[in-house]
């Protein structure tokens, strides 16, 4: 090796040889390394209780995952100082079911006392049953499709379901534009969250006696909607409702406006992130999105979350996904704290066997009430969130056309 560095002229063939030897070694060493390196710790890591987060850091949903990562890291910053000490383990859950499932498994075998994630509902339907069977509590931070807490006893969520949130923005649109009647809906038909949200938008529209003039189905990853927009605009809709991911939804909004649609647009939870601003740019202006989080909520916990977030992100307003991820961590930490306090004298949570701890922790999570950045929340016995405050925000873009904010409607 040393010689190789000093004599660059003869480096090339040697390097190739070395690489070859290295690769061969790697192949042979793999099974060995795998058996030794993966001996998972079964209890705490450095006397800290590991909380495992599985979020999308790669693939399409990483736009959501990156918001969540910030929320989780801020929560770690706040709560890791308090007893009992917890440790945040973040694993990339990718944007597909398989990667999320693998990441869940790896977190479970590393001894996570509870899990946060995965980033989208589609992944949750695949990964959550594993945690449920293994008896590990899962607090979902961004899964809004119907049926998530029903996956199992160990599954709960802090992300309010589409059935609760979806009708709000439609009601707000009608309030702003009385006399609305003709409605068009766009949704991503190959996505679990979007199909679920679509059904709720449809129900909400019927309840408000809106006439649905067309339903346009898009596919995830699609970005050119010109044809569907032209088909749709010829039906003269007065309100357009979109359920889609951040980038396809953002593009859809931009193209609708460019092709001349001037009416109100309601967007679903998938577009509930400032990450859409660079996509639809100045055309984002006026977009209505229901919120499960308000940065303007004046409670001590939200103030400190807001302050930390703004320190880290040059004064930007935290998006809902960051707030929900923060909340998920907080719920687990607080439940662990209460559990510690309620144990009979002489026993500590550290002395409990891991499996017992997970079970008690799940019971505690479901029975507690929590003062979080989302407001005061608690859970139904199923694990569904009970949240008091919902909002509808209207996007207000700055004159530069690339930055903006979610302004809450009164």
């Amino acid at each position: 090796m040393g010689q190789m560095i000093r004599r660059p002229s003869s480096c090339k063939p040697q390097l190739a040889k070395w690489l070859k030897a290295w690769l061969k070694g790697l192949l042979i060493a793999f099974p060995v390394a795998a058996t030794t390196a993966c001996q998972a710790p079964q209890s705490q890591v450095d006397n800290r209780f590991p909380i495992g987060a599985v979020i999308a850091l790669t693939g399409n949903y990483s736009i959501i995952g990156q918001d969540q990562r910030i929320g989780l890291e801020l929560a770690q910053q706040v709560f890791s100082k308090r007893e009992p000490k917890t440790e945040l383990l973040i694993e990339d859950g990718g944007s597909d079911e398989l990667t999320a499932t693998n990441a869940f498994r790896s977190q479970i075998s590393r001894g996570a006392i509870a899990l946060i994630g995965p980033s989208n509902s589609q992944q949750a339907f695949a990964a959550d049953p594993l945690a449920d069977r293994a008896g590990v509590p899962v607090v979902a931070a961004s899964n809004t499709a119907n049926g998530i807490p029903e996956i199992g006893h160990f599954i709960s969520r802090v992300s309010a379901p589409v059935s609760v949130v979806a009708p709000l923005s439609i009601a707000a649109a009608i309030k702003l534009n009385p006399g609305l009647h003709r409605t068009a809906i766009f949704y991503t038909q190959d996505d679990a969250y979007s199909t679920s949200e679509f059904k709720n938008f449809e129900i909400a529209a019927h309840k408000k006696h809106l006439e649905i003039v067309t339903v346009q189905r898009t596919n995830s990853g699609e970005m050119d909607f010109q044809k569907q927009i032209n088909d749709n605009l010829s039906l003269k809709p007065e309100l357009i409702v979109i359920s889609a991911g951040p980038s396809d939804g953002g593009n859809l909004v931009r193209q609708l406006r460019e092709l001349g649609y001037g009416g109100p647009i309601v967007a679903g939870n998938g577009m509930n992130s400032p990450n859409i601003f660079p996509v639809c740019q100045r055309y984002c202006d006026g977009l209505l999105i229901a919120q499960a989080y308000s940065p303007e909520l004046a409670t001590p916990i939200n103030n400190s979350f807001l302050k930390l977030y703004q320190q880290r992100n040059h004064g930007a307003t935290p998006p809902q996904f960051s707030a929900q991820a923060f909340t998920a961590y907080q719920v687990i930490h607080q439940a662990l704290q209460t559990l510690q306090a309620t144990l009979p004298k002489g026993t500590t949570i550290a002395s409990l066997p891991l499996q017992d701890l997970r079970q008690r922790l799940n019971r505690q999570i479901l029975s507690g009430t929590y003062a979080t950045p989302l407001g005061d929340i608690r859970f139904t016995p199923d694990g569904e969130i009970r949240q008091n405050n919902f909002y509808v925000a209207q996007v207000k873009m700055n004159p530069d056309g690339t930055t903006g904010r979610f302004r809450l409607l009164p």
Partner: protein
Amino acid sequence: MDDLLQILLNGLSVGAVYALFALGYTLVFSVLGVINFAHGAIFTLGAYFTYLLIGGGVGSNGLLAGFQLPVGLPFWLALPIAGLLSAAVALGVERVAFRPLRKRNADPLLALITSLGAGVILVNLIQLLMGAESHSIPTGSLGSLPPALSFGGAHIRTVQVLLLAVSTVLVGLLTAWIDGTRSGKGLQAVSEDPVTAQLLGINSGQMIQIAFGLSGFLAGIAGGLVGLSVSIAGPYFGIGYGIKGLGVLVLGGLGSVPGAVLGGLIIGLAEALVPSDLSGYKDAVAFGFLFLMLLVRPQGLLGKPLPNKV
């Protein structure tokens, strides 16, 4: 009548992108007889290069967080430079993923895997450096042009018109180059029969590099234009086009330049004809066409008849 014009416009503007994409595949295929699976990644790079060159800043993720080039070029200048940078990357891909195999006389099939490896590296490198968020080329890049134009009742976004125009010019230039210059004819000779071409004194190694460079340039330009049209959705931006480009490639005929253009336009139009209710099946259109074509006429619309042994 308006409807027909609208369908035509929608179809052509989408088809133009497919055509540009398939042209890149076909150039490499014509000289090497293999498919470059890193092509989609180079398309993505073209979009990112354009974004950076116009002075776009990197967000808060990735190793380059907060980075911004000191100069912001106008879009019409940034686009060709991005094309050239993409061409350089394509040459690099040729060097690491194709040349070593050729030197060892290895099965050309292996290049499918090595180029896939190169693509995986490029995509994840983008993610490592710039994060996974979307980046957008500002809508103001086209100056004072209106966001959409209308032609007798049909509406089309200005960006799409630009896309169609640039693609047409590029295809025209490429055809003129292939038919009208010495090096273009050399490329043709290599694609028809590498051995004879070698005997005639044509440097096939050089021709392969030219093909890769051109294919990278086209991919980069296509990436920049699509980035302007729909914003860059993240490092995985090019993958969908990459798969569909395969369908276009085979429909037109592997290795045929006019075939790639024709294939792109046909699939673009066919997709525009899918009724809205069945839009879920739209992605299958290209492959349905491709599948039927392979069974009826395996060499594609404009390809040469297949040799007996491959």
